[in-house]
């Protein structure tokens, strides 16, 4: 059984094997082109964020109007996905500060999206940096969501954040009191704990305000708009996110072997902000969401064949995770293109 504890015994093995902050594979790409692709654009990001908030507003309003009728099911269903799933990609891209050209715009959206996806912003900023240094390196990567030797039903329950959200809430409470776990201390610098403490306090206060308004109006409706969508709207991001790394190689320094690129339609790419080009994102995290498709076209000959659809990727991921529950040695080996494999 593998020990995934960050900073645990596996981290010592990883260091001995040269897997810590290692040089990862980079494809060949023209400097002028990659420079173009790294360009930020406030206009694109503003348009996308505005369309997201507009969709939240429209479906939120429809959900409110339909409260008490069966129409509330589909309207809250869509509102929940816009809130509890779509916030993930906005959280992610603004966390990298690649969405907007202007730093503070990234930071504002990052703090809002972090609350919606139910992640304390500062700790997750550092865990995500670690995820990029040591992607799927056991004992180092703090964001290995789909571990081996885990019964598959547990992943299914995460479709509604059954343990992720309550665990995160417990951490907010601890952080708000100035207590930090060994896990956090492993990847987050101590001088940033204050930010985590205050962010946790503010997020808890917001939630307390929503609960108080529920009591005031004697209805759970306010929580259906803020708070609960992090559970009931979470399923889509799990469905999309499970395809990023699950079932692939651990402890390798080539993102082509531990990450998937999947072709998706325009709706999913809008929701997911092109994170389906996940190999490309990991190799070049400075390329913003709106240029990932162009980056993919430029380097795809040097990458494994992309999955033709989300469905095809899930057809591989689900049976693999089921098998890995009992067979930790099993994983999917991605085939590298021969021309760059020699």
């Amino acid at each position, binding site marked *: 059984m593998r020990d995934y504890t960050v900073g645990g015994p596996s981290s010592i093995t990883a260091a001995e094997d040269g897997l810590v*902050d*290692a*040089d990862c594979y980079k494809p060949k790409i023209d*400097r*002028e082109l990659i*420079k173009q692709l*790294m360009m*930020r654009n406030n206009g694109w990001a503003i348009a996308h964020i505005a369309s997201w908030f507009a969709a939240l507003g429209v479906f939120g309003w429809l959900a409110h109007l339909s409260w008490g009728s069966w129409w509330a099911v589909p309207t809250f269903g869509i509102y929940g996905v816009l809130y509890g799933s779509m916030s993930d990609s906005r959280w992610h891209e603004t966390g*990298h*500060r*690649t969405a907007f*050209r202007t*730093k503070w715009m990234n930071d504002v959206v990052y703090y809002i999206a972090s609350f919606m996806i139910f992640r304390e912003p500062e700790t997750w*900023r*550092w865990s995500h*940096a670690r995820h*990029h*240094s040591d992607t799927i390196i056991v004992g180092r990567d703090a964001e290995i969501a789909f571990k081996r030797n885990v019964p598959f039903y547990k992943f299914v329950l995460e479709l509604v954040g059954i343990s992720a959200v309550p665990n995160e809430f417990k951490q907010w409470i601890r952080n708000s009191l100035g207590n930090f776990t060994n896990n956090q201390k492993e990847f987050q*610098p101590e*001088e*940033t704990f204050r930010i985590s403490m205050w962010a946790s306090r503010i997020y808890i206060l917001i939630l307390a305000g929503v609960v108080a308004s529920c009591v005031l109006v004697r209805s759970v409706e306010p929580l259906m708009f803020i708070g609960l969508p992090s559970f009931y709207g979470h399923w889509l991001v799990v469905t999309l996110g499970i395809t990023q790394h699950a079932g692939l190689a651990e402890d390798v320094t080539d993102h082509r072997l531990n990450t998937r690129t999947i072709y998706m339609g325009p709706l999913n790419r809008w929701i997911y902000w092109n994170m389906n080009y996940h190999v490309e994102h990991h190799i*070049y*995290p*400075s390329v913003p969401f709106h240029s990932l498709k162009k980056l993919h076209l430029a380097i795809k000959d040097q990458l494994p064949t992309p999955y033709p659809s989300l469905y095809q990727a899930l057809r591989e991921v689900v049976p693999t995770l089921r098998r890995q529950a009992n067979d930790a040695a099993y994983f999917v080996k991605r085939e590298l293109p021969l021309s760059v494999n020699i």
Partner: protein
Amino acid sequence: MSTEWISACDESSIAKNDVARFDHLDGTYAVVRMSDGICVVMDGLCTHGKAHLAEGFVDGTTIECPKHNGRFNVLTGEPVASPVRVATTVYETRVHNSKIEFRLIK
């Protein structure tokens, strides 16, 4: 430490808003040319992790590290975006006879 001017490259070999790598003895440097044409030589390796800033992205007076998007002020070397927390070294730089030159004194 040497106070000699070290020639890094031709000014024209780096486009505006770009950066190139220069290795000298056992050191590695990032040679930045900003949009206004000002050239700055700084330490090549990021102070946060194992990445070369020459693969990064120059925007105005900041350079972004290619690994975790940490940012430095090109003129002062100060960190301006996490996860970078430690300042980097910026060297005295000049353009002389169309060459970008720098001195290994801070």
